[in-house]
Every structure is written in C-alpha cells, then in structure tokens.
C-alpha cells in the first residue's frame, strides 16, 4: 500500500517546512537577503548577508534572522556584528535548531532579515567618560563589538581632527583609550574573537591606542581565568564599560564595576525572543525597580543600574 501524503494535504503539496511566509507574497516587512560570505570562526560562524534596504544599525542593535526555507517556526535574534552598506554581518553560535540552520548556510543561500531592532549602546556616552572605554565580552557575547569598535574609531577620529560635540578629551597618558577584555571557555570558542582582533588592529593602525586581552577558562592559553578577572585587574575610576555575555558573567561584571567609583556600565542582554519588536511580551526582564522590561524593545542594551540597582 502506498500512502500519498502529498494528496489532499495542501501543506504537504506545497512544502512541509514552516520557515518563509509562502511564495509570491507581497508587502512584507522582512527582507529576503542573500548570504554573501561565510567565515568559520572556531565554534562559531560569521555570516555576512546582503540585505536589500538595510537602514544601518546602532552597535548593540539586533536583527531577526530565519533561513529560507527553514524547519523552524520563529526567527532568531542576533546582534549586528558589523555592517557596510547593505552587507550585514552576524556572529552565530550553533546552539539550537535555528542557529544551527543559520550556521549551515552557504554563499548564495537566502535568509529573512528583520531589523535593525532594539536599543543599542550609547556611543557618545561611552566616549565622553573621563577615562577609557572598556569592552567586556564572554563567548558569543563578542558579537556586537566589531561594530562598536568601528563606531568608536569614527568618533575618536572626528574628535582628533577637531570635531565638535562634547567628545574632545585629553588622551590618557601611557594607556589605551579602548580596552577590550574577552573571556572564552576554550580555544575553539575563541575563534570568534577574530573580527574583534581585526577591529582592534584597525584602530591601532589609525593611531588609536587600543588593547585586547583574552582569558581562557580551561587554562589552555595561559592561566585559568575569566573576563571578570581581567576586568578586576584593569578597571579604574572613570571608565565606561560595555558588556555582552551570559547572565552569570554579566552579574559578575556588575559586581566588579560597582566596587569602583565613577564607573558607568551598559549591558547587552541575551534572552529567548519571539517577535523582537515588543509585540509578544515574551522576553521580559525584571528590572531593579521591580518593573518588567521587554528585552527586545526596551533593550537589549540596558544601563547596569537599571538591571542590577545601585
């Protein structure tokens, strides 16, 4: 006996995947982009997608990505890692079905993109502090920082050629203006540091003092330590700190930062999201004042004191 699941079942006749909204639909708000580059970065993948109509992101903003076709129902929220016109890059860790699907895409493959979404880092607030900009990332939390570093470079260059705005600052004698502290589980995970390392090199080439340090939890490349150990060693009063990483790391970073006077922090938080635009109320976070924030709409970047209190 032959079963004919493709007869009578309209779903079976068209296709069984649930990814795209269907062929030939018009007036969609998502853009159907094409993968233009794939980089294998240790255990992560750097995906560059050409997104028609991309508006340009603030560092820390994210986009919803879904392969086309896809076996998943929902898109995945991913930080914008870098951008050049309509070429938008993402750093993706294959942690579940959706991210594995995205990591398996190859040049020319199609992917739906909605974004940029959410509130990113306040670049002006970071650069106008009395001391350095300190970037702290754990694992896949490196994702938003290549873009932040390139925007910091633009800001500092504007200042050094006599640009206006409150950004004029005297260089910190003997030390870097930007300190980047990355923590990884192991060497394989640290492959995703490459875009950050390249952004740091570019800053140095352009004459901006920038230093990068990495910590490895497995001790494979030096002492057993975390990004927070590096931060504990280097943080000083007046620093402005941008953080992205797992929840436990973020809490540990906050503990280090609150112990030093005049340190301001901003955290890019990760969470499961459905809509990415504030519609579903699924990604709520209890803030220090007891109110609920939607990470997608009110964040994903929050001031440390909003999240953790005083």
């Amino acid at each position: 006996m032959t079963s004919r699941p493709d007869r009578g079942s309209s779903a079976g006749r068209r296709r069984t995947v649930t990814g795209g909204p269907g062929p030939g639909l018009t007036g969609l708000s998502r853009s159907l982009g094409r993968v233009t580059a794939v980089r294998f970065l240790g255990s992560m993948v750097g995906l560059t997608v050409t997104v028609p109509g991309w508006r340009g992101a603030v560092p820390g903003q994210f986009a919803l990505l879904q392969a086309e076709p896809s076996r998943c129902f929902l898109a995945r929220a991913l930080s914008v890692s870098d951008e050049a016109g309509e070429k938008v890059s993402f750093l993706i860790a294959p942690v579940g079905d959706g991210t594995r699907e995205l990591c398996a895409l190859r040049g020319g493959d199609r992917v739906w993109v909605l974004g940029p979404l959410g509130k990113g880092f306040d670049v002006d607030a970071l650069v106008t502090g009395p001391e350095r900009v300190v970037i702290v990332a754990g694992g896949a939390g490196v994702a938003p920082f290549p873009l932040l570093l390139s925007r910091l470079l633009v800001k500092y260059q504007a200042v050094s050629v006599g640009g206006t705005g409150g950004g004029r600052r005297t260089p910190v004698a003997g030390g870097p203006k930007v300190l980047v502290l990355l923590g990884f589980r192991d060497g394989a995970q640290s492959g995703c540091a490459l875009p950050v390392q390249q952004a740091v090199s570019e800053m140095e080439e352009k004459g901006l003092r920038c230093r990068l340090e990495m910590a490895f939890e497995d001790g494979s490349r030096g002492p057993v330590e975390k990004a927070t150990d590096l931060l504990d060693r280097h943080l000083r009063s007046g620093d402005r700190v941008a953080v992205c990483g797992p929840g436990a790391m973020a809490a540990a970073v906050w503990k280090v930062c609150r112990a030093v006077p005049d340190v301001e922090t901003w955290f890019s938080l990760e969470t499961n999201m459905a809509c990415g635009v504030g519609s579903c109320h699924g990604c709520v976070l209890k803030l220090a004042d007891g109110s609920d924030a939607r990470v997608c709409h009110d964040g994903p970047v929050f001031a440390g004191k909003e999240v953790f209190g005083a």
Partner: protein
Amino acid sequence: MPDLSVRLGPLRLEHPVINASGTMELFELVEVLGSSVIDDPPVAAYVPKTVTLERRAGNPAPRILETTGGMINAIGLPGPGLRAFIERELPRLLALSCPVIISIGGFSRREYTALAGGLKEALDRSAGGDWTGRVGLEVNISCPNVCSGCASIGGDPGETAEVVAAVRALWPGLLVAKLTPNVTDITAIGRAAAASGADALAAVNTFKGLVIDRETLKPYLGNVTGGLSGPAIKPLALRTVYELFAAVDVPIIGMGGVATVQDVVDFISCGATAVAVGSATFREPCLARALSEGLGRFLDGRGLALGGLRGTAHTRE
C-alpha cells in the same frame, strides 16, 4: 482584485485578515516599520492586547519557547489596566483608519461588565457620535495562562452564557466571544455564546500544553503550563471552526496556526468569515496584509467570490 470586504456585526472590514489579540503592538511597530504601519495598518481590524480591569504584571519568565511547528507561551495578560488603557491607548486607537476590536479579559462576570461598561462610557464621551461602526469588543473567556476566571468561564456553557449576556446588555457594538479549544464540546460553548447575544465567535485560543527544560527536566515555563500556537495546531483549530460553522448562525473569526494563504483559504472553506494571524506575526509583522493580497489572487485564479469560498468544506461534492 475581487471584493474582499466582510461584515462582522456592525463592522465592515476591508479584507478578512486581522490579528489575534496579544500578537501585535501596532504602535511599537512604528519604530521598526515607520508611521505607514499606523496610517495604513496591515490588518483589516486591529485587536490590541487583552485589557484587564486592574494592572497586571503577567507571568514569571520564561514565558515563551519554540516548539515543533509552533511555539508555547505563558504571558499571563500583563497590562496597565482599564483606566490607563482608556487614557493612553483609546485615543490613538480611535485615530486608526481601520476598525478596532478591543479584547477584554476578566476573572468574574462583574469584571467583564465593569470593563465593557467603562469602555462604553469612554467611547460615548470621546469617540463622537455613533462609534459602533468603528469599535467592537472581544470577550476573551479563553486565556489558558491565568489561574482563575477567563478560561474557566469559557470552559462552561452556563458561565459563558452569563458573561456574554451581561456584556450584551450594556454593549451596543460588535460583540465577539473568543473561545477556548480546551473543552470537550466547543459547539456547546459556541451555542451558549451565540444564544446569549454574541455577534461573532473567535475560534480558537491556544491549546493548553507543557514543555520540559532539557537541562533541569522540570517544566520550562515560569507558569508551568502554557498555550500552544502556530502551524502545529492548525488542523485542531480548523476542526473547531468546521464544527462551529455547522452549529451556529453567527460569523466566525477563524484562527490557530494561520501562516500562509492556503491557511486562510482553509479556514474560510471551513466557514470562517474572517481569519486572524497570531504567532506567525512574530516572524513577519505585516503578514496579515500579505495574506489578504494572496487571498485575492487565489480567488481570482479560481474564479471565486469570497462568499463563494465560505463554508465550501461543508458541501458534499
């Protein structure tokens, strides 16, 4: 393009595709999609998130998880409460170019009448003239994610009849009863609602479900149970529309897993007058409009009028 307009009680919809309550914050989409989303909404009628009498925080996190072919949620009706809704939301809702169907959820009959009465009073005061062609009411008696009221009312024909009749007595506009599928016989609930004065039925809300955290082996959702939605539930939802169409004479708003033009066609074939897009909105905010345009092309291709499609699944040939 064929005429896609439909009537739900006193409301005229430009096309049959609307959103399910709780899946679209239209005014916040402006930040992403620009003001065109307000000037020309992607839905034929906008259904805001269910309004409760008092402010509610909603359920503890985590509230959502993707499942095979869909997702589960336990949001728990967070919201600012009726007074804040009337002050902050109602004015901008009334300025929309499409009709609005306000969803209300309560924990007792008295709460439903307080909500409907409060809204009517506010509309009489601020909407100017006869507003019944612009604003309808959905009584959500089917949310699975709150501990009392709501779904327990919609699970009982007697309580459904009492709430619908009480709201009907004071609400002059479109009155929709949104039904839960988590009952033995949905036609008994649908008949009770229609007989008590509901102008239309919305079928259906989410299916109560549960997911396990693969690390802890405990229920994943903060609320333990949640409501399942998405393409996985479409055949289940279609069945409820099919059964209700045969059981009641009022129009049905079909929903449950609508993601493609074919889904819209299927719900209308089973008897739906309008169709709501729910969680598929989360991946494509403007899906409703795209589906209505696709429906138009489908009807053109088949040489059918919209009315000729409705209920065709019930005729034997």
